[in-house]
C-alpha cells in the first residue's frame, strides 16, 4: 500500500512541479537555517573537556574592599597573586594550577624566519595533567621546576612545525624575548572549545602556542594578556604581586563530590583566616563552579548565536505555515478524487495515509540536509572567531533528518486530516 501511495504522491507532486518545488524549498530553507544555527550553538555551548568537566572546578573567593559592595553579587572573577600562591601551595585538591595568558616574541635560530609574537600561557606544572593535554613528544615540567624558575617550555605541534620543522624537538632550545628556553614537551593537536580555562582572550580562536612556568615568566617580566581588576592602591606599584589586584586564573581538580565539599569549606576557612589578618573586608563569598557552570555563568555563548537560533526557528515556523497552506489547497482541490475513493471503499485512515505520504517527507529531508551543509559553508565565510569550528557531526546529521521528517509530516498533518474528512460520493453535487 505504501508503495502505491508513494507512486500516487510522486504523480501528484510531478503534476505541480512549481508548487512542489516551492514547498520543498520552503521547508528545506527553514530547516537549513535552523540546523545551521543549531550546529553553531551546539558547538559553542559544547563541553570543552567532556571526560572531566564535572571534576574541574574554578574556585572563587572575594578579597575586594567594602567599597562598591552589593550583597549577593558574584565574587571576584580571578585571584590575586598572593591568594593564588596560597591556594596553590595548600595543595588541598587532587591537582591545581595557577595561570595567566601572555605574549612573547619568538626569535628563531633560522635567520630566514623573522621574529614573531605568539600567545603564551604562564602556568604551574599540574596544568597539563589536569586538563588532559595530549603530548606528541616529551611532557610538561615538574612542580620543582616551578620553584626553580626553570627555563622550560612546552610548545604546540604547529609551532614545532614552524620553528623546528616538526619532529621530536624535546631538548632543543627556543629563544623567547631574549632568554633561551629548553623545549620539554610538544603538545599534540589540542583545542578545548571554548577556551574555558581563560575566558579573557578570544574564546574560540587564537589559542596559545607556548606554555612556560608562571614563576619564570614573572621573573623575566614577560608581558601578560587578560584583564586585571585593582580595587585599592598598590604601595610599591607592583600590581602583579599586589594583594589588591586580581588577574590570575586558578583551577583545581577534585575527584569526588566529598572532596569538592571539603574544598568549599577550605575556601571559607581561608577567607576567615585572611579576614583575621586584616584582609577580605567583605562577608565570605565563596563559589566553586564546575567547568560548565563557569561557562554558563560567564555567558560564554555569544548572544548573537542564540538570537540566530531563535530567528531561524521563527523562519522555519513561517515556512511550515506556508507549506501547510499550500498542501491544504493542493489536497482539497482533489475533493472529487477523495470522494470517489471513499465511495469505492477507502477507509478514512487510508486517505490520511495516502496524503501524509505525499507530505513529501523525503524530499524535504534531503534538501534540508543539502541546505544545512550549504549553510555551514556560509558560516565558515563569516568573520566570527568561531567560524572555523563549524562542521557537521553525526548528531547534527541525525537531527537534520528528524527535523526534516517532523516538519514535513507536521505540515502534512492538518491537510491530510482535512482530506480524510471529505464525505464519500460518486458524483459531486457542485463545486
Amino acid at each position, binding site marked *: 500500500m505504501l508503495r502505491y501511495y508513494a507512486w500516487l504522491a510522486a504523480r501528484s507532486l510531478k503534476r505541480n512541479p512549481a*508548487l512542489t518545488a*516551492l514547498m520543498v524549498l*520552503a521547508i528545506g*530553507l527553514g530547516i537549513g*537555517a535552523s540546523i545551521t544555527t543549531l550546529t553553531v550553538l551546539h558547538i559553542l555551548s559544547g563541553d570543552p573537556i567532556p571526560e572531566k568537566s564535572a571534576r574541574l572546578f574554578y574556585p572563587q573567593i572575594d578579597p575586594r574592599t*567594602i*567599597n*562598591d*559592595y552589593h550583597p549577593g553579587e558574584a565574587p571576584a572573577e580571578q585571584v590575586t597573586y598572593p591568594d593564588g600562591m596560597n591556594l596553590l601551595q595548600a595543595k588541598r585538591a587532587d591537582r591545581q594550577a595557577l595561570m595567566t595568558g601572555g*605574549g612573547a*616574541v619568538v*626569535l628563531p635560530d633560522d635567520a630566514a624566519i*623573522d*621574529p*614573531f*609574537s605568539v600567545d603564551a600561557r604562564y602556568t604551574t606544572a599540574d596544568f597539563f595533567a589536569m586538563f588532559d593535554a595530549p603530548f606528541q613528544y616529551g611532557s610538561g615540567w615538574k612542580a620543582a621546576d616551578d620553584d626553580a624558575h626553570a627555563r622550560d617550555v612546552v610548545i604546540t605541534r604547529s609551532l614545532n612545525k614552524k620553528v623546528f620543522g616538526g619532529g621530536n624537538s624535546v631538548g632543543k632550545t627556543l629563544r623567547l*624575548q*631574549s*632568554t633561551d628556553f629548553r623545549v620539554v614537551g610538544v603538545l599534540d593537536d589540542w583545542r578545548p572549545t571554548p577556551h574555558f580555562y581563560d575566558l579573557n582572550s578570544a574564546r574560540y580562536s587564537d589559542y596559545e602556542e607556548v606554555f612556560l612556568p608562571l614563576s619564570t615568566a614573572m621573573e623575566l617580566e614577560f*608581558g601578560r594578556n587578560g584583564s586585571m581588576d585593582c580595587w585599592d*592602591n*598598590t*604601595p*610599591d*606599584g*607592583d*600590581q602583579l604581586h599586589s594583594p589588591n589586584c586580581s588577574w590570575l586564573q586558578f583551577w583545581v581538580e577534585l575527584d569526588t563530590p566529598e572532596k569538592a565539599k571539603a574544598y568549599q569549606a577550605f575556601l571559607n576557612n581561608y577567607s576567615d583566616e585572611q579576614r583575621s589578618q586584616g584582609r577580605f573586608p567583605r562577608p565570605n563569598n565563596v563559589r566553586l563552579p564546575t567547568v560548565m557552570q563557569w561557562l554558563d555563568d560567564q555567558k560564554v555563548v*555569544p*548572544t*548573537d548565536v*542564540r*538570537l*540566530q537560533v531563535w*530567528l531561524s526557528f*521563527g*523562519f522555519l*515556523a*513561517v*515556512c511550515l*505555515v*506556508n507549506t*501547510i*497552506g*499550500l498542501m*491544504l*489547497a*493542493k489536497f*482539497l*482541490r482533489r475533493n472529487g478524487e477523495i470522494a470517489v475513493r471513499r465511495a469505492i471503499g477507502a477507509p478514512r485512515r487510508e486517505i490520511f495515509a495516502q496524503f501524509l505520504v505525499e507530505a513529501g517527507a523525503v524530499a524535504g529531508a534531503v534538501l534540508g540536509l543539502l541546505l544545512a551543509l550549504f549553510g555551514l559553508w556560509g558560516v565558515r565565510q*563569516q*568573520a*566570527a572567531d568561531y567560524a572555523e569550528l563549524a562542521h557537521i557531526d553525526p548528531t547534527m546529521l541525525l537531527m537534520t533528518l528528524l527535523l526534516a521528517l517532523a516538519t514535513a509530516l507536521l505540515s502534512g498533518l*492538518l491537510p491530510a486530516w*482535512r482530506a480524510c474528512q471529505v464525505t464519500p460520493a460518486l458524483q459531486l453535487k457542485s*463545486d
Partner: protein
Amino acid sequence: MDIAPIIAALKRQKTAAALIAIEIALSCAIICNVLFLITHRLERSHVPSGVVEDELVYIRTAGIGASGGDDPMVRAREDRAALASIPGVKSATIINQIPFGHSSWNTGVKLAADQQQTSANVGAYYADEHMLDSFGVKLIAGRQFTSDEFLNFDDVLKGKSDPPSSMIITKTLARRLFGDENAIGKNIYLDDTKPTRVIGIVEHLIRPNFGSDLIDADSSMILPVRLSLGYGQFVLRTDPGNRDAVIAAARKKLKEVSPNRIVLDAKTLESARSDYFKQDRVMAGLLVAVVISLLIVTALGIVGLASFWVQRRRRQIGIRRALGATRRQILHYFQTENFLIVTVGIVIGMGAAYAISGWLMHQYELPRLPLYYLPVGAVALWLLGQLSVLAPALRAASVPPATATRTV
C-alpha cells in the same frame, strides 16, 4: 467593493484563510523586530568616536627582551619623536589605548573622597601633551593641559605621586556626573586621596570596549600621564591619502631607532573600526537575508495559495461572470479578499511583534521596539500581499464566463 459577501465566503474557507493570516502575522512580527535589530546594529557601528578616524594610524610594538639598559620612559619619548619626524606626519602621541582597540583601561570615579559606591565606570586615556592634537578630539569647553600638569606613569603606578591634578572629560560623562551644571572646575576622585579637577570638555571620545549602551560608550576621561613603552602604543596623524606611506615609513623608522622591538600591528584606525564592528555587520547582513527570505517565502506562499484558490473557484468565478460580474469586479474581489486576510494577519502580527520585542528586551538588553516600526511593517506586508495576489487575481479575472456551462 462590498466586503460582506467576501467575508461570508471566507468563513467557509476558514482554514486556508487562517493559514495565510498566521503566516502574515509571523512574518510581520519577525520582520518588524528584525528591521529594528538591523537599524540598531547599524546605528551602533556608526557611533562617533570623537577622533579624526580617517587621518590616524596606530602602531603597537613589543620588546624582544632586555631593554639594554635603556630607560623605557626615555626610549618611549625618543621613539615618538622619531615617528613624529616622518615626513607627512602631522602629530604623534603615545597612548595607553585607542578607540576600537584591543586593550582598555577603566576606572571607577567618585565625586567625594569618602563615597562608598563609585559614581561611574569611566574609560581612562593616559595622554601626553601631543594627544589632543594627534587624536583631533574637539575641545568644546575649558583648556588643554599645561606642561607642568603631566605626571609619569611609573610614578603614578608606584604611588610616588598624587593622582593627576587635572583631567579632560567627554560631554557625555560631564552630563552623567554633573547634569546640567558646568563641569569645568568640578572635582572628581580617582581614589580616596586627592581630587582631580575637570579643566576641559571634549565633544566625544569613545572608550575601546563598549556594549549596546552608547552613553556608557562615550564616558571617557583624559588624564595627563606620560606612558612608558611597555604600556603604550603610538598613534600618528597624517593626511588620509598618506596613511599607507606613513605606515611603511614608521615600520622602517622603528627598526632603525628601536632594533630590539618588533611591530605587532601597524594599521589605520578605520580598519580598527571596521574590525571592531565586523560581527555587527555580518549579523546585520544575516538579518537582511532573513527579512528578504521571509518576504520571498511569504510572497510565494500567497501566490501559491491564491493560485490554487483561483483554480478551485474557477467555476464559481465563471458563474459570477455569467451572472454579470465584470473582470474588474473579479479582480477586486480577490484583491479585497487578500487585503482582508493580510489585515487580520497584520493585526495579530503587531501584537506578536510587541510581545517578541518585550522578550528581546529582557533577553538581549535591547531597547523597546519603537512604535513606528509597526505601521512600516504593516504597509510592507500589505504591499507584499497585493503584489503577490495580483497575478492570481488577474488569472481569475480572465476566467471566461462560459466556464459556468462548460465545466462539469
